[in-house]
């Protein structure tokens, strides 16, 4: 009897790097930047980087949950804007009130998304395109079409501007969220069901899994986290901003995909998303520092081109390694 060569993957140090195109790119960029620019690796730069990018990272977490079910949530940017307004309006009643107002606002839109998607069985792209418009409108109506100051006497602003143990509070909120959501995706029935739904929704249904409830759950989560991002937005910048959050959904989606999550669903990694979103955010930071060198001044318009090309390179890196990479 002929024995087939086993094609099983042996743990191979090179294999570990495969499928990690984004991580490699991130490390390379960090190394490059820290060697080239003064002040890049400063505590100030790092903490202000995360203070700002924590919003996208949070949204990326929710987006990952949605995308592993094979869905998409275009409403997150508008929801963040809306929640920032709600939080700012509620902030005079205390930090907790502000936080809750933002979170509940986001949750409400997430639930609406989830209900419409599961009840009417309309593609998520369309429903969330609708709430993308709707939440923006609500943000403008609620704010009277102008930024709303947060209460400056209370502690609400601390949620965005404060530090604990030298770490910015938004970053801590992010870490806390990760601590909850990584196991939620990996090791709970909800998380596994979410993956199963993205893999094959019909099969998941016939397997007796709670498909609709799970889908409702992921959109609710996405809304909730967009709401949290909105709270941070209001607290950090001292104002609820009805016009903010434009294009955030695309940043989040790109970050999720760059992080190695399948856009078609069924497989995803939150840590990958963290790498992806960080990488895309870092490009802005590095471009600003490069201009500061005064060696070559990169024209504004070229900056867009560079960002696009950079996305292209990372995506190509990722798509090639994804095709070669191990199947687990």
């Amino acid at each position, binding site marked *: 009897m002929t024995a087939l060569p086993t094609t099983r993957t042996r743990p191979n140090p090179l294999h570990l790097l495969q499928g990690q195109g984004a991580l490699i790119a991130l490390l390379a960029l960090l190394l490059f930047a820290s060697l080239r620019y003064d002040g890049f690796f400063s505590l100030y730069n790092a903490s202000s980087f995360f203070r700002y990018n924590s919003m996208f990272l949070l949204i990326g977490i929710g987006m990952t949950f949605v995308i592993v079910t094979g869905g998409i949530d275009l409403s997150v940017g508008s929801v963040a804007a809306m929640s920032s307004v709600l939080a700012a309006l509620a902030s005079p009643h205390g930090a907790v009130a502000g936080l809750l107002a933002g979170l509940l606002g986001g949750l409400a839109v997430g639930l609406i998304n989830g209900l419409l998607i599961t009840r009417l069985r309309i593609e998520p*792209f369309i429903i969330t395109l609708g709430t993308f418009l709707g939440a923006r*409108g609500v943000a403008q109506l609620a704010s009277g*079409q102008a930024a709303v100051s947060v209460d400056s006497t209370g502690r609400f602003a601390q949620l965005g501007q404060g530090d604990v143990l030298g770490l910015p509070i938004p970053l801590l909120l992010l870490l806390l969220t990760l601590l909850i959501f990584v196991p939620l995706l990996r090791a709970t029935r909800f998380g596994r069901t979410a993956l199963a739904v993205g893999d094959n929704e019909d099969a998941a249904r016939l397997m007796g899994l709670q498909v609709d409830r799970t889908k409702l759950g992921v959109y609710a989560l996405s809304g909730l986290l967009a709401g949290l991002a909105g709270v941070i937005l209001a607290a950090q910048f001292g104002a609820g901003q009805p016009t903010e959050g434009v294009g955030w959904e695309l940043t989040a989606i790109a970050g999720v995909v760059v992080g190695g999550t399948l856009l078609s669903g069924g497989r995803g990694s939150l840590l990958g998303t963290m790498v992806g979103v960080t990488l895309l955010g870092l490009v802005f930071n590095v471009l600003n520092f490069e201009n500061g060198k005064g060696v070559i001044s990169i024209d504004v318009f070229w900056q*867009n*081109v560079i960002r696009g090309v950079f996305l292209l390179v990372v995506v190509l890196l990722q798509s090639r390694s994804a*095709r070669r990479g191990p199947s687990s």
Partner: protein
Amino acid sequence: MTTTTETPAPPRNRAPFPVHRHAALIALIALILFNVFTTPRFLTLATLNINLTQTATVVIVGIGMTFVIATRGIDLSVGSLMAISGAIAPLLFLNPTLGPNIGTVLAFVLPIAATGLLGAFNGLLVTRFAVQPIIATLVLFIAGRGVAQVISGGQLVNFTQSGFTALGSAKLLGIGAQVFIMLALLAVAVFVLARTLFGRQVIAVGGNPEAARLSGVPVNRTRMLVYVISGLLAGLAGLITIAINSSSDSNLVGQNIELDAIAAVAVGGTALNGGRVTMIGTLLGALFIQLLRYTLLVKGVPDAAATVIKAAVIIGAVALQYRRR
């Protein structure tokens, strides 16, 4: 024992009127009726002209988008491609060395060719490199506007070149030229989709890519072509936009049009996950959204409230198409 029964032919009840298939049309008619009764001076040629001309670019881009969506793709780059063609054209017809005639002709040809090529680039990413369409076209969505800005130096270019601006200002029977271009393209697209080999293959690719491949459909070539078509049409839409305004602003031309086009396609009844495609639906969807915007403007609804109403009505119109199982 066993009764061996003769089988009566299964009774075929006539299905009730398929509301879901004509949702866009019904919504459009309802909105028209609403205006007929509540908006003064609604039934005029001017109203027709305004709404049709303002929809023309969305429909033209929407035709390409329908092709792309029919293959389960999506094209976010259309707005940026419009800006690129809008940035290239003035360089040609304002170019003194080319002269006005050659320059104008080239201004119709080269920008569209360029965006067609960029469409091919999208297609290449989607087919050769297996990048998911939303990400593949996000690259040009970001970089493309930068390219347009670099071409124009970011400057707004004003011009009064009548040969070229005719594209936006010429009228026939009181209706703008771009409307006729739109209708002609739509007729061609309807025919292509329904009657030609290419059209059927496009739908097969969207319906089941693997089955299509095994049945001899050149899947990659088909997907490539739809992105090229989308690129070409976006290029044309860019030219129309700058011609109407007699100015080209690479920062703004085509901004957000991808959302309008996708919404039109969806409201029209094309499924985003393949299999169900309607070109006329895209026209109806775009007209519906346009008329909705018109209505809200005429009624003086403030911007913020209008946005909320628009969102609800669009979701409602799409929901009409989906029957519960």
